[in-house]
């Protein structure tokens, strides 16, 4: 059905529609709903950053949250010891995370498939164990396992602290919008096509003269930069950062699962993954709090298995198809008329 060419759920229109929904939604929601929406944006942004390298180039990283931790820790330490505004600390942290990401990835990108995945788990584990057991790294305090509880700055927006949840929401939303825009730009650039070629068959890509390591490293750098911004957001929003969660295996897998379930290697996949999974898991963990503590993550696992089985390209494809089907049922006749007019011309 060629009608789908005009669908509002395709291409740019779909993204604009989603952006509009995201912009308006928190204004209509109560505080609890707003906090869920913040988490949706946060996880969506992290998954978008993950997707940029892991989804497009097919290098399954299960330790990507390590760069989130680095970014969050650097901005927090700068804030607490030197009084540097997190807005600046965020960029410093991101630059350092990018550097560390590129340096670490240079040797590990030689590894293929599961070997790379295992290496990424090991890297995350090494950083986590190190931070957990180190009180002071030279002159820099790390505070070991107790982590950092951020001091109040009196709700100053310049210090990344907002009085209402709306402030945090729009920060997360802008981050997400930038993330989606960068992914969209990249997917249409040479870099994006190279990465897809590398994912399909990196030997073939290399034989065609693509510098595989170079392009993977560029994507890795962008991805690390973005995900470390999410780390600063995490620290500022929760007003706490500690090694258990942010350097832990659970968060790393959760980010990967959101992107994978949504649809890896697609622009909107990770966002759709977060929109579906985060509210579901928040609702479940709030409803069954204390009695069944693993239920929400259990569902992540089950949904992942089902997605691998029945929708290998992720939820994204089906969500768009379903939306188009509804659209066609509602406005189908109108759309078709337009189509036939255009055809007769």
């Amino acid at each position, binding site marked *: 059905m060629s009608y789908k060419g005009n669908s509002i759920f395709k291409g740019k229109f779909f993204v604009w529609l989603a952006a509009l929904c995201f912009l308006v939604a928190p204004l209509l929601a109560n505080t609890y709903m707003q906090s869920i929406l913040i988490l949706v944006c946060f996880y969506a942004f992290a998954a978008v950053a993950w997707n940029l390298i892991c989804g497009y180039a*097919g290098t*399954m990283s*299960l330790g990507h949250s390590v760069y989130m931790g680095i970014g969050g820790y650097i901005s927090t330490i700068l804030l607490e010891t030197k009084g540097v505004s997190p807005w600046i600390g965020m960029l410093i942290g991101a630059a350092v995370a990018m550097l560390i990401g590129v340096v670490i990835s240079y*040797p*590990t990108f*030689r*590894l293929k*498939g*599961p*070997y790379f*995945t*295992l*290496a990424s*788990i*090991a*890297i995350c*584990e*090494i950083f986590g*164990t*190190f931070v*957990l*057991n180190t009180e002071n790294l030279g002159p820099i305090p790390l505070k070991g396992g107790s982590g950092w509880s951020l001091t109040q700055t009196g709700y100053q927006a310049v210090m990344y602290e907002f009085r209402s949840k709306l402030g945090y929401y729009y920060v997360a939303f802008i981050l997400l919008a930038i993330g989606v825009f960068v992914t969209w730009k990249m997917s249409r650039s040479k870099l994006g096509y190279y990465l897809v070629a590398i994912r*399909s*068959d990196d030997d073939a890509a290399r034989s065609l003269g693509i510098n595989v390591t170079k392009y993977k490293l560029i994507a890795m750098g962008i991805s690390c930069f973005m995900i470390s911004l999410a780390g600063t957001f995490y620290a500022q929003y929760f007003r706490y950062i500690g090694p258990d969660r942010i350097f832990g*295996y659970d968060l790393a*897998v959760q980010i*990967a*699962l959101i992107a*994978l379930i949504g649809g890896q290697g697609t622009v909107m996949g990770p966002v759709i993954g977060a929109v579906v999974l985060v509210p579901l898991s928040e609702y479940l963990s709030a409803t069954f709090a204390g009695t*069944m*503590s*693993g*239920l929400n*993550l*259990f569902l*992540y*696992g*089950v*949904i*992942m*298995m089902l*997605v*691998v*089985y029945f929708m*290998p390209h992720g939820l994204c494809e089906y969500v768009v198809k379903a939306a188009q089907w509804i659209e066609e049922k509602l406005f189908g006749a109108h759309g078709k008329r337009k189509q036939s007019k255009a055809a007769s011309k």
Partner: protein
Amino acid sequence: MNNLFLSILHGLILGGAYGLIAVGLSVIFGVVRIINFAHGAMLMASAYAYYELFTRYDVDPFLAMIVIAPLFFVIGFLLQKVVIRPLLIRERASVLEPTSVMLFTIGLDYAIANLYLMIYTSRYKTLNTWAYSNYARLFDGKFVTQYSRIISFVLAFVVAGILWFIINRTELGKRIRAVSQNRDAAALCGVNVHTTYGIAFGLGTAALAIAGACMASFYLVSPSVGNVFGTKSFMIVVLGGLGSIPGAIIGGLIFGLIEQVGAQFITSTMASMLSFILFLIVLVIKPDGLLGKKK
């Protein structure tokens, strides 16, 4: 007898248990060529089976092993035959998603781990079996360790020996080796590839269930043990060479030694960090592992 010597002994004993946990993973990878990310979760599941049998019917894990290991063989066989097989077949048809089995096992790992968290909560449990609460005293009482650890150390070599014998000296092993070398050629010779895969997977999970009995009787039982030992066993298997049975045991011994000897000089958690760093170095320099064969 100084502390260093004692810590080497402790390291070897612990390393044997690590090797035992890793050996099943190695068999599965060696034959089916997939890394079972649900390995740790299945280890944890078997430990809870022993916990239930011990607390309800007072059956010692080392005895219950006789029932649980065959049960896990069946579970592994069915998992491969029913669940993973369609994915493997589909993967051959298209080159687009060569990672679906890995993603599936990651999802399975997450699901099992959190299912047990839901049922048993995160509280630690210990099994006060005879082997857990009685200590062996060797070298004039200077070397003190639980009997369960010594049993695990011995079992590691027994299980590895049995697996090695099955794969290298029996008719079934010939089929397994044929499939792992070239599955199309094996299929042409009349070997049922997916049944053989299933048997290999079952052998791996049965070995894992034996490791579970050891772990339950010298360590804690909690939903997070799967994560702790699972991650380590991936590293051990890669360190020793994926698919190599002696490699898994040697990798386990190296990990045990680093952790125990390293703990003499730095904190024990830092020492386990050291073993991860060693893993990374080996992986980058020699991705096939210490005893791995070139592909």
